C-alpha cells in the first residue's frame, strides 16, 4: 500500500490538469511538465512499496525492487522531454507569429479598442 504516493500522484495530476485548463501558455507548459512528472510517479508506484528493499542492482542487496517500471519511466521521461522541448519551441514560435502568450487571445483575439493603432 502506497497511500502517500497515491495522494501525491493524484494531487499532482489534478493540479497539472488545472494548469492545462488555464489560458496562459506558460501555465499550460508547466502543466504538461507536471503532468509527465505525475504519471512517471504513477508508473514508479507500480513497482510496489520500496520499504525494506534495495536498488535493482545485483549485489547491492538481498531484496531488489522491481526494475521494469524504472526502465519504463526512464524511457517515458526522455520522450516527454523531447516532446516538451518541442512544445516550448512551438509556443515561442506562436508567440513570435501572433505576439501573444494567451491561448484565449490566440484563437479569439480581443477587439482592438485603442484608436492610435496603425
Amino acid at each position, binding site marked *: *500500500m502506497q*497511500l*502517500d*504516493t*497515491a495522494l*501525491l*500522484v*493524484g*494531487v*499532482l*495530476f*489534478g*493540479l497539472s*490538469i*488545472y494548469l*492545462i*485548463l488555464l*489560458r*496562459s501558455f*506558460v501555465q499550460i507548459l508547466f502543466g504538461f*511538465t*507536471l503532468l509527465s*512528472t*505525475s504519471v512517471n*510517479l*504513477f508508473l*514508479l*508506484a*507500480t513497482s*510496489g*512499496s520500496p*520499504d525494506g*528493499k534495495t536498488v*535493482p*542492482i*545485483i549485489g547491492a542487496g538481498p531484496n531488489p*525492487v*522491481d*526494475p*521494469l517500471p*524504472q*526502465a519504463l*519511466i526512464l*524511457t517515458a*521521461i*526522455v*520522450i516527454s*522531454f*523531447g516532446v516538451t*522541448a*518541442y512544445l*516550448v*519551441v512551438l*509556443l*515561442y*514560435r506562436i508567440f513570435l507569429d501572433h*505576439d501573444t*502568450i494567451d*491561448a*484565449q487571445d490566440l484563437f479569439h483575439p480581443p477587439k482592438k479598442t485603442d484608436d492610435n493603432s496603425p
Partner: protein
Amino acid sequence: MDPLLIALLLALALPLGCALLMPFCVRFLRSSLSWTLSLIPLTCFLLITWVAWKTADQPQVVVGLPWVPSLGVNLTFLIDGLSLFFGLIVTGIGTLIFFYARAYFQGDHETPLGRFYAYLLLFMVAMLGTVFAGNLISLFIFWELTGIASFLLIGFSHDKESSRSGARMALLITGLTGLIMLIGIIMLGLNAQTWDLAPILNSDFSQYSNSPWFNAALVLIFLGAMGKSAQFPFHFWLPNAMAAPTPVSAYLHSATMVKLGVFLCARIFPIFHDATLWFTLLCSIGFGTMLLAAWMALRSHDLKAILAFSTVSQLGFLIGFYGLGSSVGVRFDFVHIMSHACYKACLFMIVGIIDHSCGVRDIRQLGGLWKKAPWLGGACLIACASMAGIPGTIGFISKELMLIDLFAVLDKHGASVWLLLLLVLIASILKIAFSARIFLHLFRGSETETVRHHWHAPSAAIQVPPLILATLILTLGFFPGLLDHPLRSLHVLGLHDETGADLALWHGFTKELVLSLSLVALGALLYSRLQAKGWKLEIPLWARFDLFFEKGIHLFNSFTKKSTALLSSDQPLHYIPIILITLLTFMAFPLATACHQWGPEILAQTRLWQPDLLRSLTVLFILISACGLVTLKRWPQQLLCLSAIGFLVTLYFILYRAPDLALTQILIESALILMILLLLARFPGQAYAAEHRPPTAPIRKVLPMLVALSSGLMVTLFLLLASVKNPDQSIGSLYLEQTLPLAKGSNAVNTIIIDFRSLDTLGEISVLLIAVLAAIGLIMRYRRTPHERTQAAHGPAGFGLPSFKNKELP
C-alpha cells in the same frame, strides 16, 4: 461457358467498352459515320432477342459468374419474362434514342460528345445490369450505377445552375432511397439466407411473413422504388431533371430509369404480394401520385415539365397497378409499360425537336406548327391520342385493361376501393385534358411570334424515330393481337395471372368502353373550360416540393454550421475540457465497479499502512511547491517552484531506490528548465501583462477545478487499484534473475533499456532526434533563393499556398 451467359455478358460489355472508348474518338463522333453508334444498342437488342428466343420454352433461367462468392455476391443473370421485356425496351428505345441523338447534335461543335455518349452507354449498361440481375446485391449495385450515370447525364450542361441543382437533387433522392432499399434488401436476404433472387422468388413465402423484417423489408425496398420512380413525396426531382439534353430525357424518363421502380415492384411482387401492406402501400402511393402529378402537369407550361409530370403520373398508375395485382392477379402489365414507353419517348423526341428548332419550350409561346412540320404533327397527334387513351392507339388498349382490372378489384373488395377508382378516373380526365393541350397548342392555332422568328426546319433524320414510334403505337393499337404471342412467352412465374385473356381492340360494348368514352368526353370538356379561361394556372407554392428541397438544403447547411459551432469544433480552448469530462464520465462506471470489488481490500490495506517519515514529508513538500506553482502569479516564480518540484521528485525517486531514474530525472529537468528559460525569458513585459486579465465567469473558474479534482481522484483510484493485488506472474522478478547470467550486467535497469527492451530505447532516442528536427523546423525558416521563388510563381503548389487567412474560418 453457357452461350446465354456469353450473350448477356456481351450485351453488357459491348456498351461498356464503347463507353470507355468514347472520349477518345471525338473526331469519329463528329463525322458522318457516327450513325453507326445506334448499332451498339441494336446489337444488344438483337442479343437479347436471341436470348429470349433461346429461352422461350423455359420460364426462368439463371446464369452467372462468381464475383464475390465469399459474400454471396455474384454476377448472376436471371433470365425470365420480366428481365427480357425490360431488356428489350431498354435496348429498343435505346437504338432510337442513339439515332435521334446523332441527329440532335448534328452540327454542334461545342458539346463534348465523347462524354455524352460515354454516359449514355454507361447508363444503358447499368439499366441492363439491373433488369437482368439475379442477385439482390448485384441488382442494388447496378441500380446505384443507373443513379450515377443519370446524374452525369442530367448535369451534362453543367454550366447552367439549373442543371447542377437538378442533377444534385436527382442523385441525392435516388441515392438516399437506394441506400434505404439496400437495408430492405439486406433484411430480405437475411430472411432468405441467400442473396440470389431465383431461390427467393421460387420459395414458399409464407415462411418469411412471420419474420420481424418482412414488412420492414417491403417498406424499405418499396421506398427505393418510390425514389427511383419519383413517387410522392419524391415526385419533385423528375421535372427538375429535365435540365438534361432532350435525348437524355427521352431515354431516362420514358423507358428506362424511372421505370426501374416499376420494374422493382414487378420483381418483388412474388415475394411480397401476399402481405396486406402491399396492396395498401402501392395503391395509395401509386394512385395518389398519379392524381397529384396529373394535376401538376395540367398546371405546368414548360413542355418538358408537362411530360415529366405526366410520366410521374403514369408511373404512379403502374405502381398502383401492381398493388391491385395482389388481389386480382397481374395481367398485361407489359402492355401498360410498353404503351407508356412508346408515346412518352415519342413525345419527348418531338419536344426536343421543337426546342431545337425554336429555342423555346414554353407551350404558351408556341403554336401553329402543323404547317411547318406536318409529319411531326402527325406523330404528336398519335402519341397524344395514345396518352389520352383514344381508341385506335395502344393507349386505349392499356386504359381499357386498366379499367377492367379496377372493376375486378371493385368486385372483390367492394365499395372500400371506390376511392381508388375515383382517383384513377379523375387522373384520366386530367390526362386527356393536358394531352389535348399539348397537341392543340403546339400544332394548331396561329403561329406565335417566337415561332415566326426562330423556327428553322428540323432535319428529316431527326423526325424518323418519333415517326417509327407513332407507327408502332398505331399498329399495336389496331392490331393488339400481335402482342399475344410475345406476352405469353414473356409470362413470369409468380407475377402474372395464369388466366390471361387475349388482347383485342373490340371487346364488345362493355361498361369499360362506355366509361372510357365518357372519360374522353369529360376530358374534352375540361380542356375547353380551361381553354376558355386561358390556362392561367400555376403550380401553387405548397406543391413545390423542389423549392422545399432546396430550401431544406439551405437550412441544413446553416444547421450544420450551427451544430458544428455548438459542438465547439472551432473553440480550441474547449477541446481539452470536453475530452477530459468525457473521459471522466466514461471512467466513472468501470471505476465504481472496480471500487465495489476491491474497495474492502484497499481499506484493509490502508489500515495496515505505516507511513515512512521521509517519504511522507517529501510528498508534503512536493505538494507545497506544487501549490506554489498554481497559486503564484508570475511565471518566474512558478518556474522556480517547478524546479524545486523537480529536485524533490528526484529525491522521491531515490526513496524508491531508483538511482538511474534520479540521475536522468534531474539531468532532464535541468536541461528542460534551461530551455524554458532560454525562450520564455524572451517573452516581453507582456508576459506579465497577460496575467492581469479581466475577471472570468464563475463557471470558467469552477469547471477547471472540478475537472482537475476528479482527474486527480481518478488517477489516485488507478494507483490504489493497481497496487491492491500483485499479479500472479510478474516479469519484474524475471529481469532480476536473468540480468547477470544472461544479459551480463548487474544493473537491471540498464540491462533492460540496453538489452531486454533495447527497441524501446532506440525509439526513445529517435523521438529525441525528431523533436530537435521539429524544433529546427519551427525556429529556422527555410529560405528559398530568388530563382526558386520565380520558379514557383504562386508559391508552393497545393495546400501549402492558401492560408486560413483567406478562408471562411470559424
